[in-house]
């Protein structure tokens, strides 16, 4: 049975819900950012996002955040290219939520960020679940970029997808 999700901007009072996925090593293992270990760091981050991120949304079930999704355009001549990222609380995995959120985000973001021509996802090669999310959401797999990022002490192979 599909769960109904909504996307909305974050509020500072979402910080404890935010820690529910951003503070979980299981969720962040394939993210390029580090697990949040302090509520203060999470508050600083949400403050920054609320103030200045071009497109960052909470993925909500019954209006409570259970994950996040963003599209980050590049700078200068790369602003036509946006990178999509998403994370949801482990207890909501396996229910098509990320796929639904990605579909909603991509349909919104091309209208809201007028410059955007390309949305890409850069997924760790080991993260098959996330690759399936993008495939189900209609992204095209373009290739494997070897040793593309250096994250958490190691170089990482990345699969690149685009819409």
């Amino acid at each position, binding site marked *: 049975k599909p769960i109904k999700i909504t996307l909305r901007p974050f509020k500072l009072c979402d910080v404890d819900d935010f820690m529910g996925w951003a503070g979980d090593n299981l969720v962040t293992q394939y993210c390029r950012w580090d697990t949040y270990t302090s509520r203060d760091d999470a508050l600083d981050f949400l403050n920054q996002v609320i103030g200045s991120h071009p497109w960052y949304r909470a993925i909500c079930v019954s209006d409570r955040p259970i994950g996040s999704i963003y599209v980050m355009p590049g700078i200068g001549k790369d602003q036509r290219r946006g990178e999509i990222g998403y994370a949801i609380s482990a207890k909501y995995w396996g229910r098509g939520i990320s796929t639904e959120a990605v579909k909603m985000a991509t349909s919104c973001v091309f209208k809201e960020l007028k410059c955007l021509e*390309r949305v890409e996802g850069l997924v760790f090669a080991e993260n098959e679940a996330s690759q399936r999310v993008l495939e189900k959401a209609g992204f095209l797999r373009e290739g494997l970029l*070897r*040793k593309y990022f250096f994250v958490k002490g190691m*170089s990482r192979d990345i699969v690149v997808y*685009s819409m």
Partner: protein
Amino acid sequence: MEIALRPYQVSDVEDFMEWCDDEVVRLSRLRHFTSREDAVSYLKETVIPHPWYRAICLDNRPIGFISITPGSGDERCRGRITYALGSKYWGQGITTVAVKKVISTVFEEFPSMQRLETIVDVDNKRSQRVLEKSGFLKEGVLRKYVIFKGNIYDVIMYSLLSTLT
């Protein structure tokens, strides 16, 4: 035919303006230099301060350039290679010689670099051949990846991995 790589100097300005012809400008991110002063500024502000930028020299005269731009932060394991050669020298294998010279030492010069990459317009077959002959692997086509002189282009991503552990 003696091909050598060396840093640029301001005194190379005339040779620089000469090889940077219409064909090169059409395909690369270089632009036409409207005057000697314009080209001197470019050498002083962009070329000379660059982390690694070399003249491709034929019999000691610059006829092109090749550069390596190392990444930083979570991109520190990679570097980007770019190059251009005066069009009257195309088709003789010169760029391939220059690329092979660079890749023979780049991973020692940049120890944290594990990946050397570049993107090439899907229609630029010459440049694709240079990379393939130099041992780069074609990883995929990235659609609508770059904007260049007002148009959006698909590009091919190529990479070469360091064999140093």
